[in-house]
């Protein structure tokens, strides 16, 4: 595995990765893009569910046929598991092995791997690892300074700790799901993507980096228990304070700005089907500029809109008038016109807009082409976005490719890292251990 890219911040850190889907797997994709060696473990009956999602048609290879790796014997009965674009995006830069964690010999190999690693991270239900004899104390006995991060949905303690949880479950357990949409009696809308699959990985990555920093200073590893809902609840602090300080419960406010005076402030229809623009006016200078851009319509001179206080008292009418104007305009043209005039405005971008039409993301290099052994070369997104100027991150990590195919790195891990001979590996494969 050679690569000629610039050095990365977490070179030399090895992570044993028993994560799943996104909430936990998202943590290690960040660390992979920072240069860590992340070894994902899957096994028969435990292939990541994401491998079934967003299957794509492989791109024609630029130079001759692709040499797709043969799946290990234990996995050969499994239908096509290497065609998921989503799996590639979420697991780019990682190594992948197949190791049967249900078999005692598989557990022994796992322990050998722990012995040469810095971190163990998993997203199982809370007692899974313990039931296999792999709790923190055992891991610590294998490697005294091991760092072990457990990322169960509800966490490993507490009355709900065995409960099932996916991203939306964590979203509502954190109190932030209720905050989106129109006021009651309308129902809350939550996010229609899994925001609480996106957020916990940041906190997991921070936890692991801080733990490495601490270990480098003290020689001590540690055990960390991060429930999926906890970072979300942590983010809701102002709502908790408002209740504690003022006795006031939260409410939904649509697209209004209850805590920072702004009028108009909302999302308004533009020309075409389901096209919208966000406009936010925070002071009289911006309001005057907006009026000028609208061509000083007579309604804007009404005393009900004369200053912020009045506009805040007449928001429904203000929104209705404004939308009569915006709905005739194309969203990007209107955005640039208002920005030129000094008004904060932004087109509501769809995923397709972000990929095809957003000029800023292109320049920022948000999309990076990565080769995938089965899928060919496709654009992948950055899961860690800041630009580190001296030690850049790169979504391809140390492998410089998308996600691993099933067992793609068996040879490297079992032979090069663990020192097994070809015969030993073949024997393990025969018995379904590898």
């Amino acid at each position, binding site marked *: 595995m050679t690569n000629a890219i610039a050095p990365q911040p977490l070179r030399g850190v090895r992570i044993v990765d028993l994560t799943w889907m996104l909430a936990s797997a998202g943590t290690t994709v960040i660390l992979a893009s920072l240069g860590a060696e992340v070894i994902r473990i899957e096994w028969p009956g435990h292939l990541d569910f994401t491998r079934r999602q967003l299957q794509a048609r492989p791109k024609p290879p630029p130079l001759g046929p692709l040499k797709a790796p043969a799946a290990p014997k234990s996995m050969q009965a499994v239908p096509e598991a290497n065609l998921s674009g989503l799996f590639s995006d979420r697991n780019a830069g990682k190594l992948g092995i197949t190791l049967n964690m249900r078999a005692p010999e598989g557990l022994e190999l796992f322990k050998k791997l722990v012995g040469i690693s810095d971190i163990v991270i998993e997203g199982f239900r809370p007692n899974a690892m313990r039931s296999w004899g792999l709790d923190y104390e055992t891991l610590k006995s294998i490697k005294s300074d091991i760092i072990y991060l457990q990322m169960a949905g509800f966490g490993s303690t507490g009355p709900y700790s065995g409960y099932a949880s996916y991203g939306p479950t964590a979203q509502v357990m954190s109190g932030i799901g209720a905050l989106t949409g129109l006021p009651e009696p309308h129902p809350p809308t939550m996010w229609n993507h899994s925001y609480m699959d996106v957020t916990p990985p940041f906190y997991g990555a921070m936890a692991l980096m801080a733990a490495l920093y601490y270990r480098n200073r003290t020689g001590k590893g540690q055990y960390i228990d991060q429930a999926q809902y906890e970072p979300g609840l942590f983010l809701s602090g102002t709502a908790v304070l408002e209740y*504690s300080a003022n006795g006031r419960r939260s409410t939904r406010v649509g697209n209004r700005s209850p805590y920072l005076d702004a009028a108009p402030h909302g999302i308004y229809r533009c020309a075409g089907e389901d096209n919208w623009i966000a406009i936010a006016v925070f002071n009289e200078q911006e309001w005057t500029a907006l009026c000028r851009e609208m061509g000083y319509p007579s309604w804007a001179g009404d005393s009900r809109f004369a200053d912020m206080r009045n506009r805040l008292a007449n928001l429904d009418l203000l929104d209705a008038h404004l939308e009569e104007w915006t709905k005739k305009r194309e969203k990007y043209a209107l955005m640039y016109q208002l920005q030129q005039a000094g008004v904060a405005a932004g087109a509501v971008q769809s995923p397709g807009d972000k990929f095809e039409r957003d000029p800023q993301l292109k320049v920022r290099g948000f999309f990076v082409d990565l080769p995938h052994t089965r899928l060919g070369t496709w654009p992948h997104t950055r899961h860690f976005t800041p630009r580190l100027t001296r030690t850049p991150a790169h979504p391809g990590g140390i492998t410089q490719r998308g996600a691993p195919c099933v067992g793609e790195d068996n040879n490297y891990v079992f032979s090069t890292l663990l020192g097994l001979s070809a015969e030993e590996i073949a024997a393990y494969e025969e018995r379904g251990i590898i």
Partner: protein
Amino acid sequence: MLLAGHGADVIKIEPPTGSPSRAIGPFYQDIRDPDRSLFFWNYNRAKRGVVIDLNSSEGRDFYTALIRTADAVVDSQGPDVMDRLGLGYDWAAEISPNIIYCSITPFGLNGPWRDLKASDLVHSALGGMAYCCGYDPVEGNRWDTPPFNPLGWQTWCKAGEHAAMAVMAALLCRQMGGPGQFIDAAIHDAMAHSTEGTVPRYIFNGVDQTRRLPMQVRCADGVYLNVLGLPPADFKKISEMVARDGLVEDAEALRTTDPSRFQALPSMLARWAARRPAMEAFRALQGCGLAAGAVRYAEDMIADPHCQARQNFVEIEHPELGRSFLYPRQPRQQAATPWRSGPRAPLLGEHTEAIRRELLTKTE
């Protein structure tokens, strides 16, 4: 706040009039005062605060002394602001060559949108978050409601999280023998990533994931319950439970459903859920392996037994007000190096003199 929570000594620098975020509400007892902003309280706890007038020579001397002792700088003033004062990264690196300098700007320091004006709402729109939040279409591709921006300053939170990760990565890299460096973090980049699988879905399948209501049912107490019919849901067990309520048709639908029909789950559970409060429905469905969750506000979690067991809240003293207030405590459980959740955010200029004295003793 995130770096302080991990134990860093964070010194917040404010102009004499105070950080603009002190004007963001809500306010304690609804009194608009720089020391009463609950927004500021939440996002600035565990930090110390100094007032520096960077336009004065005395202020610049103070800032210079701070830079000499700093491992990292986090600068969200906006593109070029500190550079125009002659106090940006190039200047700081002259004084302290291994310094880590993290700039957080709306769109980053290059590109055609570099100098655009933004707000939380505008970032949500441009970043793609708003597009995916809202009600169902009236038909096909037509909505009569707009996309919605989730409350709670999510765009700024995402940017802060990416930046905190970046500073940590840089600190770790430097600890392991690497250089200090400049970091260019952008809110727009962070938001572009925040939409989970939606962009890959467009890239790999050519489909735009649009907004619609989540899978939820309304319970007897008016609280919604989010329900997901994914493994390890035991539909047989759920069917039996619903049958015990006498809801024969719903029970039959549940018994014969298959995983591909889990979108229809709310309609099969609506009548059963409408008869009981959300938390009771939650426990009952979880008992059948169904990932269910009550859609509650954060303040409802205070009395929740799970959040209490995990100590998700903490009282933090505000001595000058003669009382304490409740805050979320920590984003995880970590015994060896516990999260630092307090003390409360600094009053304006609270630590100016103390830190000035500290710097004097350092140079002696």
